[in-house]
């Protein structure tokens, strides 16, 4: 950490988490109180003093990185809305969790965008889905739903169009078995409330005006378009939602002065399915396959974050066994392979974006196919792996990858699993990475396109809660596997990839280094797998229950996924015996929050660079829109 002069106040950075909390409790006794609910952590801050205390937390206590900000609706359990913030130090360590409460009617909590710009999208999301108003937010409007949408869907009393019951499993499935098709049940509009003035036949979306307004245009787009002759020195360009460079349905509204971008606003939500609402209807177990569908390039990592969060909650109970060593080793094996898949994919498609059309992608995807073959043989599916369970895994490694099949070609690709893995880790993946570097790293065209483009400064990266290669490409030495380790990472030997420049090329180099570091980790995992062969993959020695009861409390499980920090905030509001459905299930999606600095990263560059900058952030819309 290259801190400027250590003033007496900044010395507090050396305090531990507990000391920091007791400092807050003693210095601001009138505004800060300990969160003493069963299984909860951190402090509750008086929402009127929130901004001041947040500044103390950031500047004096050194918690400079706000990882997650999300809302919880405690309907029927205190009847208040609560914003939960998880702040970390970029030098590493645990979270300082602080919360602000407000009542459900006229919910209002001051905006923290003046302290952490990274709360920008997250507060908009909380407004959109929970209906909390944030005075002081520069651009508070809906982000995932459209502007004409009625209600705030994550509130507990809001019911969706296909509503059946509050909690799964639904009673109509068994023993009565009242079979129906979903669309037969959903008479359009039957259980959705629309504002009285909305014309259902012709849904008019007022968000367009809002988008243009927020770009600081004098709004009248038509007037700008109508400027006669060639005098259009400021123009609005809509890139997307259907644009090949946006990797899905994603839209960027930019104003350009000639070819130069003067402002940019990401518009998202086209793939929104309210994953979190589905997650709150689901049981804990039901959610694991749903997490696969977030960042579908690295579903193993998604599984991992979620099971870590729920295992944290389970560890609050009386009977809890840690996952076995073999289970942890297998998890790391899978997650690191997904990271390789993710980075090969990210680099390949970023190359596509800046003009090297499909040649690099296809070279890299060959190796990805082999890894997916492995996933398919072990977990049963190539991309929607659904591999991890609470306290265990779906299954141990099979002895052979393709043992038998009813097809005629069943001898093709029949490998011993460990041999296949060893060959993949020691030979094929490193060879692919070498090829990748030979093709790209010194390539003059690539360098000219990417060096000095899309620069994000170190301060901005931290302040905008950027994560993953985006953060490390800006010179912040922050990798959760190191900074706040989980699983067996503390005992593994690897370096955190970091580059100081903050441009597209730096992010590319971070990804290449991470590929090599992943291979290094995998090489250490192989002997561990051999040493633990035969050990149970289940913490309790037998498969877990199909409806586990999870004790009361909250947990934030986070992992370093390929795209950045993936966090799951899970609240269990069960009674004495715990609950089998989460009360709150929130995903801190790296693809979503990494888009927050997209505006400042693009300012001043050309339109053709925007495509590359977006590619270098590496987003997946399944995760962005959730």
């Amino acid at each position, binding site marked *: 950490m290259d801190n400027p002069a250590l003033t007496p106040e900044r010395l507090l950075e050396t305090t531990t988490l507990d000391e920091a909390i007791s400092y807050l409790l003693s210095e601001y006794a009138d505004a800060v109180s300990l969160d003493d609910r069963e299984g909860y952590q951190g402090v509750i801050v008086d929402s009127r003093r929130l901004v001041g205390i947040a500044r103390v937390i950031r500047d004096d206590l050194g918690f400079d990185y706000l990882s997650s900000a999300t809302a919880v609706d405690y309907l029927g359990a205190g009847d208040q809305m609560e914003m939960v913030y998880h702040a970390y130090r970029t030098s590493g360590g645990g979270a300082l969790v602080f919360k602000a409460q407000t009542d459900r009617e006229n919910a209002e909590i001051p905006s923290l965008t003046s302290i952490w710009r990274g709360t920008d999208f997250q507060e908009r999301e909380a407004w959109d889905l929970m209906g909390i108003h944030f005075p002081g937010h520069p651009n508070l409007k809906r982000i995932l739903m459209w502007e004409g949408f009625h209600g705030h869907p994550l509130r507990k009393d809001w019911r969706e169009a296909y509503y059946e019951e509050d909690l*799964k499993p639904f009673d109509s499935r068994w023993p009565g078995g009242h*079979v129906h098709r979903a669309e037969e049940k959903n008479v359009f509009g039957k259980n959705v409330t629309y504002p009285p003035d909305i014309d259902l036949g012709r849904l008019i979306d007022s968000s367009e005006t809002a988008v243009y307004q927020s770009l600081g245009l004098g709004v009248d787009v038509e007037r700008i378009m109508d400027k006669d002759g060639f005098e259009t020195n400021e123009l609005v360009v809509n890139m997307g939602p259907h644009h090949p460079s946006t990797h899905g349905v994603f839209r960027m509204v930019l104003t350009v002065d000639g070819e130069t971008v003067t402002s940019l606003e990401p518009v998202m939500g086209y793939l929104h399915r309210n994953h979190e609402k589905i997650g709150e209807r689901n049981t804990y177990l039901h959610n694991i396959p749903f997490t696969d569908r977030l960042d579908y390039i690295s579903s193993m990592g998604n599984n991992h974050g979620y099971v870590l969060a729920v295992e944290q909650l389970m560890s609050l109970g009386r009977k809890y066994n840690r996952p076995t060593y073999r289970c942890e080793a297998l998890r790391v094996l899978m997650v690191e392979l997904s990271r390789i898949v993710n980075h090969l994919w990210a680099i390949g498609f970023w190359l596509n974006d800046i003009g090297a059309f499909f040649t690099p992608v296809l070279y890299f995807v060959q190796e990805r196919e082999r890894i997916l073959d492995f996933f398919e043989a072990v977990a049963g599916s190539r991309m929607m792996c659904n591999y991890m369970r609470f306290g265990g895994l779906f299954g141990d490694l099979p002895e052979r990858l393709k*043992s038998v099949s009813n097809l005629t070609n069943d001898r093709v690709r029949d490998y011993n699993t460990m041999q296949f893995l060893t060959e993949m880790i020691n030979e094929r993946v490193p060879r692919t990475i070498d090829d990748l570097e030979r093709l790209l790293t010194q390539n003059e065209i690539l360098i000219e396109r990417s060096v000095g483009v899309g620069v994000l400064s170190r301060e901005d990266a931290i302040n905008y809660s950027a994560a993953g290669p985006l953060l490390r490409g800006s010179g912040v030495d922050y990798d959760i596997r190191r900074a706040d380790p989980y699983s067996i990472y503390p005992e593994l030997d690897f370096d955190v990839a970091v580059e100081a420049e903050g441009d597209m090329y730096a992010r590319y180099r971070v990804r290449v280094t991470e590929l090599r570091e992943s291979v290094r980790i995998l090489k250490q995992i192989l002997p561990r797998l051999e040493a633990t062969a035969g050990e149970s993959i289940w913490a309790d020695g037998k498969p877990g229950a199909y409806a586990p009861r999870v004790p009361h409390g909250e947990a934030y499980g986070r992992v370093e996924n390929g795209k950045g920090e993936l966090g799951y905030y899970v609240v269990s509001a069960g009674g004495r015996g715990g609950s089998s459905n989460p009360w709150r299930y929130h995903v801190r999606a790296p693809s979503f929050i990494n888009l927050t600095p997209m505006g400042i990263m693009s300012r001043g560059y050309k339109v053709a660079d925007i495509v590359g900058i977006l590619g270098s952030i590496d987003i997946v819309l399944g995760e962005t829109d959730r």
Partner: protein
Amino acid sequence: MYGTGLAKGLLLTMRHFVESYVDDIRYGFRKYHHSTDNFGIRQGTKTKGVITVQYPDEKVAVPERFRFVPFLIVEDEDHPTRAGKDWCTSCGICAKVCPPQCIWIVRGNDPNTGRPVPEPEAFFIDIDICMNCGYCAEYCPFDAIKMDHDYELASYDRTTHHIHDKERLSKPNSYWRSIAPTRAYEEMLARGSWEHKDAAKEARRGAASARSSAPRPAVEQPAAAVPAKSEATEPAEASATPASPAEGATPWSEDEAKREERRRKALERKARRAAQRGQ
């Protein structure tokens, strides 16, 4: 020197270009003809160049654990005592554990007593909703529902074809053992017999009562039921020495009272929960 990086990269592309013809020449261009051997050349570890699978003329074999849309196991037609009988006991765990809730089960009732019988009256799976997670197969305590390998389910009319009923879902036990012999073997070890749990119990009870009077009926499945695959030698050995049934296991009927009691309590709990939810 400016351009060296570029040239190095182009050399790599050149290598890929040349490699795509190396195998062609080595095998005299026959690797594109559709046959198992040629497919093996193209898909092997040592292959270079074009590796495309010419689907649907060729298909890559799916691994055993591959999962795609569940099916129900019924006893083979040539089974001595239970031919054509469902393995499913309509306990409802698959419907409860299904994340998108695409399984509907009508529990069977005895027409005379009105008591539930361990057999589903109807069973539906909406494959449009099914997310192929495999939980139903994983958590089924009777090994009665399994994930299929048949991924070609396209049809012209989803309204009539995509809700699979019991008839469409049912596949014989031998089919499961042919597509996943290793797993079927592991399940057999866990169950203690190649037979269905209930059948094994019944047989055990029958054996216990028959020990004094009648000769013991043949219970264990003969080793011949093991799929005729060369890899399946292991299961064959195992079936010759089935895990011995637990001594003094409680017969099914003695549990009846307890089960009834449990069921009553569960219904009470459920009603209580529903009442709480309604508040």
